[in-house]
């Protein structure tokens, strides 16, 4: 009985198991991600042919496509040079090769080398047509090593290839006694270090660290205009109250003869953001409180035994903001960036005083945005350092004001240009707009179409070479904008 039952039971169970087993084995596991697409070198049994390449002209970094057949898809086995300069090979479909036009390839001859799987040259071809390199305004990266893993950097000196910046914030261009071109850079908003970029020797060094200088939160710096032997540092000393103004300097100075290494207190006042030094030596500074503009050291206060600045006006009545002043090279006026706009303060050369402020470009109510438009239709988002650049066209037209103003539009990730007539346009950045709508990043290339910045804040200009230098703060790099 028992046996019989067991037999029955097991027979049926085995039958079920057999059904299941059949089915299990029939189920396959194909599909899913199976690694990168395999690449193949050229097929030696077939000829490699070349038909043509396009486009025939373009700026640096233009993608050039070479057509033909049997190129293989392994880009490591394909070498292309344009004008004798190796061109990076980006991809190959076997019938089309995509390469990037390198810098200085103006000779224009296009040579393609196809190698077989052992790395031996299978075919080399030079096209009859030449590639014509066009001139264009290009953004490049000058200095700034960043650890790609963590996207961090530090204050590290050395040659340009090695040097690192923490968050370059503010730039001042200078030429030293030996004729070296120098950029002084405030590293970190609030100054962690004053960095010295020697463009001639291609080296970065540190002038002083914050602790050595005894400063609090340096927001900007400027050269004494008449002499250029003094570098002023403007300090947000954290003293917002009038009565606390004597506690800490709001401006310091350092001297060229000391290599700007030693920092001395210069003025005492409320927390300040920027200053301008006019050609006649008059110094103005501004405070955060009520965006007040002061003329330095004119009033002696008996009670505190202090020389206070003379309060001139508020850039925007009853409003406080981080604002930054820039002197027109001809002392015509001073621009103030802040309140998401650019304000213009006329300079009275007789009284040696700045006379009130008026909105030049930007929103009347200080709202942020990004609009290229004239005057008060234009929108900015935290405009920061700017620089005046002479426009030869204006000179030719015989205008009185021949300078355009280029400024870092911090949160718009762009360099904007403001003309004397109040036209605002985007000069560089916000390129390569993709599906994500992202406009910031680290992309070199054509200034407007391709390049991107990430929260640029500092800018200076080498008039002789026509090169802009940009402190690209969140990219932790120094970028250049120039015509190539």
């Amino acid at each position, binding site marked *: 009985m028992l046996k019989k039952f067991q037999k029955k039971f097991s027979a049926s169970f085995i039958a079920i198991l057999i059904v299941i087993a059949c089915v299990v084995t029939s189920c396959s596991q194909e599909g899913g991600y199976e690694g990168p697409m395999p690449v193949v070198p050229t097929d030696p049994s077939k000829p490699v042919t070349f038909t043509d390449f396009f486009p025939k002209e373009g700026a640096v970094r233009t993608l050039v496509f070479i057509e033909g057949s049997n190129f293989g898809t392994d880009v490591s086995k394909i070498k292309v040079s344009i004008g004798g300069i190796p061109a990076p090979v980006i991809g190959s479909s076997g019938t089309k090769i995509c390469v990037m036009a390198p810098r200085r390839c103006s000779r224009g001859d296009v040579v393609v080398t196809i190698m077989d799987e052992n790395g031996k040259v299978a075919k080399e071809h030079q096209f009859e047509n030449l590639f014509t390199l066009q001139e264009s305004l290009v953004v490049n990266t000058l200095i700034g090593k960043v650890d790609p893993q963590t996207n961090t950097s530090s204050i590290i000196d050395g040659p340009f290839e090695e040097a690192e910046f923490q968050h370059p914030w503010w730039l001042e261009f200078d030429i030293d006694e030996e004729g070296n071109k120098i950029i002084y850079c405030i590293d970190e908003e609030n100054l962690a270090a004053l960095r010295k970029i020697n463009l001639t020797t291609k080296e970065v060094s540190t002038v002083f660290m914050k602790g050595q200088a005894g400063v609090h939160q340096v927001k900007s710096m400027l050269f004494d205009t008449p002499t250029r032997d003094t570098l002023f540092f403007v300090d947000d000393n954290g003293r917002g109250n009038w009565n606390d103004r004597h506690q800490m300097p709001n401006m310091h100075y350092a001297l060229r003869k000391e290599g700007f290494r030693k920092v001395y207190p210069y003025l005492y006042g409320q927390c300040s953001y920027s200053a301008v030094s006019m050609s006649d030596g008059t110094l103005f500074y501004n405070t955060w409180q009520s965006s007040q503009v002061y003329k330095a050291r004119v009033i002696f206060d008996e009670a505190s035994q202090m020389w206070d600045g003379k309060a001139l006006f508020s850039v925007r009545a009853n409003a406080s903001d981080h604002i930054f002043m820039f002197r027109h090279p001809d002392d015509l006026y001073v621009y103030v960036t802040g309140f998401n706009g650019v304000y213009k303060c006329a300079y009275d050369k007789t009284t040696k005083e700045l006379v009130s402020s008026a909105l030049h470009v930007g929103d009347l109510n200080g709202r942020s945005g990004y609009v290229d438009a004239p005057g008060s239709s234009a929108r900015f988002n935290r405009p920061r350092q700017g620089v005046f650049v002479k426009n030869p066209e204006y000179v030719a037209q015989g205008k009185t004001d021949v300078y355009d103003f280029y400024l870092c539009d911090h949160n718009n990730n762009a360099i904007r240009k403001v003309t004397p007539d109040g036209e605002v346009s985007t000069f560089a950045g916000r390129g*390569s707009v993709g599906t994500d709508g992202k406009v910031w990043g680290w992309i*070199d290339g054509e200034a407007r179409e391709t390049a*991107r910045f990430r929260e640029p804040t500092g800018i200076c200009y080498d008039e002789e070479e026509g090169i802009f230098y940009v402190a690209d703060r969140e990219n932790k790099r120094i970028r250049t904008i120039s015509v190539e």
Partner: protein
Amino acid sequence: MKKYILSVLCIVVYVISISAQKKTVEVSGTIVDSEGVPLIGATVVIKEKPGLGVVSDMDGKYKIEVEPFQYLVFSYVGYETQEHLIKDEDMVLDITMHEAKTTILDEVTITGMGPQKKITTTGSITTVEVGTLKTPVSSITNALAGNVAGVMAMQRSGQPGDNVSEFWIRGISTFGGSSSALVLVDGFERSMDELNIEDIESFTVLKDASTTAIYGSRGANGVILVNTKRGSEGKLEINAKGEYTWTTRTRTPKFVDGLTYASMANEARTTRNQKAVYTDQELMMIDEQLDPDIYPNVNWMDLLLKDGAPTYRASVNMRGGGSKARYYLSGSFLDEGGMYHVDKAMKEYDTNANYQRYNYRLNLDMNVTASTLIQVGIGGALEKTNRSGAVNTDDIWYSIFGYNPITMPVMYSNGYVPIMQGEDAESWERKYNPWVAATQTGYTEVWQNTINSNVTLDQKLDFITEGLKFIGRFGYDTYNYNHIQRRKNPEMWRAERQRNSDGELVFNRIVPERLLSQGSSASGDRKEFLEAELIYGRNFGDHNVASVLKYTQDNYVNTSNIGGDIMQGIARRHQGLAGSVSYGYMNRYLFNFNFGYNGSENFAKGHQFGFFPAYSIAWNVAEESFVKDNIDWLSMFKIRYSDGKVGTDNTPTRFPYLATFGNYTRWTGAGEQEVYYNWGDLNSGFGYPGLTYTRVSSNNVTWEIARKHDLGFDLYLWGDKFGLTVDYFDEKREGIYMTRSYLPDMVGIQGENPAANVGSVKTKGFDGNFKLDQRAGDVGLQIRGNFTYSKNKITEADEMVSRYPYLRRTGFRIDQAKGLIALGLFEDYEDIRNSPRQDFADPRDVMPGDIKYKDINGDGIINNDDIVPIGSTTRPNLIYGLGLSATWKGFDFNMHFQGAGKSHFFIDGFTVYPFSQGEWGNILEDMANSNRWILGVNEDPNAEYPRLSYGWNSNNYRPSTYWLRDGSYLRLKTLEMGYTLPKVMTARLHMNNVRIHFIGQNLLTFSNFKLWDPEMGSSNGMKYPLGKTVTFGLTINM
């Protein structure tokens, strides 16, 4: 588990066989049917000795050794059982079996008060033939829609372990607490999701007040009674079943390829005066895959989803016993496979969405004395769910829908893992690429363990008075849920959109690597039930009296993960006394009165107990002598009416009558929580820390009360060849629990607002079913159908007064879809100027090809005041089913269509609204190929999709008739074909019955809505699709 069952069984069998070693006589003979044809496989057993038995062979012959003076029992399915006394000598006993005649008058219905003859029931009850509840997937709930009159169901997901249907009895009629039905398995409140379908003996739905009043405060949403199989007297019967199922998908959303996506993205931008995203050169690079790192072309759906996944199921059960003890023993195993591809390199663990379940059950009945029956039942389920480590189960679908084909490769060529989001994104909005989400984020395991046990004492008290019986029942259930998540993620990067000047990719690291880390949670609960019943039923001539008095108490407590929450540690208790009295005269006039007097400790004293009476009457017209004598084909015609009150106490808040105190906190502008109580005037900040009411007590809160009426009839003709049942029902639900959200500020409440029983809903509807059985020679045919229609209307709700009555909830369905009425698309700017101003976007941004809305209130402005009820609800308001089965010799065939109607839902989300979230969101192929509005190409004002826009378009992307879709569908839910091997063959294998079968589920779906399965009711389709399955199976009965 199976080993265990087997050894227990062997011992049982062994003991029985030892006791059979005595002197015997031999009985042999032939068993034939009434036409003289031998019956193969008829069972012959010795009464009281169920282990000893034989079956007749291919010629209908049998031979058995029997002790003298025993009864031999002859049985065969479909025939009446016979018993014969064996004397003390060998004998030949030829048997002629007679076909069993079942009539509707013998049918028994399970009610809340126990089994009752169908002819005497007066309430509205649907009894389901369990054989029709077939589903190859794990849960029986998926078989309810279209099979059970009065039940509305919809399945929202096809994910293994999560693929259960939500169901409601006669639709929903509340918006306060829970609207789900009370499910009683073997008499106690238990889930039926994890029940082994093979274990179910009966399935009954109690729908009206008279059948549910005894459940008092918990019966208002209807009651489902499921009883499991029990042992039966007779030879040991073994059933084994194995099934293999291949699951594919009913409808999988399809997305466009890279080139189409790119050109549509360009179209979306250029036709709205924006710059194109992709240059012609880039389009070429996408097309020819010249830079697959920056211009990839990935079909994420194909990459991640397999064609299908297997499901295995095996079950074995045994039943048998004698007059003293009977048993039913079962075990089953189910393995549902997930549809995702897995990373073949990863061997340590599985990331696929798999579900496994083991079920076991032992039901034992023992006659301790002639009048005492003890029933013991233990059943349980062990469930194991596996899935990837991604945070939620739907995260993978969110990614598949979100990733367009060309922004991200699966992997960068240097092995870096891509992610489509910016560095500045918050960690909670991780937009993992689908491959990473499904395979590279670790894995999650969930175990669930359910044990149900019950003991019943059934004591006849005939010695007190005839017909009196006592039943005492005790149940004890535990449930454990363990969740262990082992999450990780690789380091993830996003390349800049351009290479650097050396032609290299520039990467930004978006997400740092996270090593496998573990998180776990557990929960559990315990339920205890106690019931005592006194049953009295007796016939006095033509008068029939039946009455029941029942005391119940139960408690439910969360046993783990309750921390320091005292309220959670206190068991939820119910106590109740219920009774029922029925009187019948010659089964002709029937009257029944029921009541429940129930209490719940969740409410304040004085509001804890409630009385729920109900009555029903029925008139059995067919039993009238003038019918009986003249119309003999009318087997049963019963008209029923019932009226009564039932309640539901399922409020979401624990102890709503208690106030809680604490430091009121609020969110500051800086996103921090601060302790704050405003001591000052309104909107003036005089906030200081201090104790305050965090919840004001709602003293008077109590249950919802439903007043239900039901009028119906049951009609049976020619025995039970034709049956028809139709019910009309109408319900008014009052006292629906709601939070008083519209208190004026001057009341001064800062914490949680109090609640009250304020809402009210009226529901009306029909349900019914019919069946027709016909035999013609060897062919048997059955046609059956059922439908449920219900419509509800809110008559009162806690809401703001509005100038426009159509803006209110009152007067419309619960969860009524509301939106603007679209008049098509604007033809031209002239059309825009001449139409009412559309205030959702800057009017200057509205262009031809954008949606034009109807100004309902005529104020010349289209705004939120023009939103009106449109369509119905996502939940279908009509469910129907139609089935046909046929048998011919060993073959059987069954098909079942199921449909749903009166369902509407809005579609939205980043795939439906193309490019609404920029790069996030793929484009549906259906949309790309549709008659959509294209500037200069197809400016049809009645196009299916408006002018494309890149980014959010606040004019077009809002609920309106334009985006309202009809959720009705009809599907071939089941197609079954089976073949039972001839007895000649099975008898040789010593088996009773062997059947092989094929079942197809959801093989065909017809609906106007094509994007994804309409049953899911999903507005964006981001769900694991429903399964379309084919099953092969083998059933063996011995």
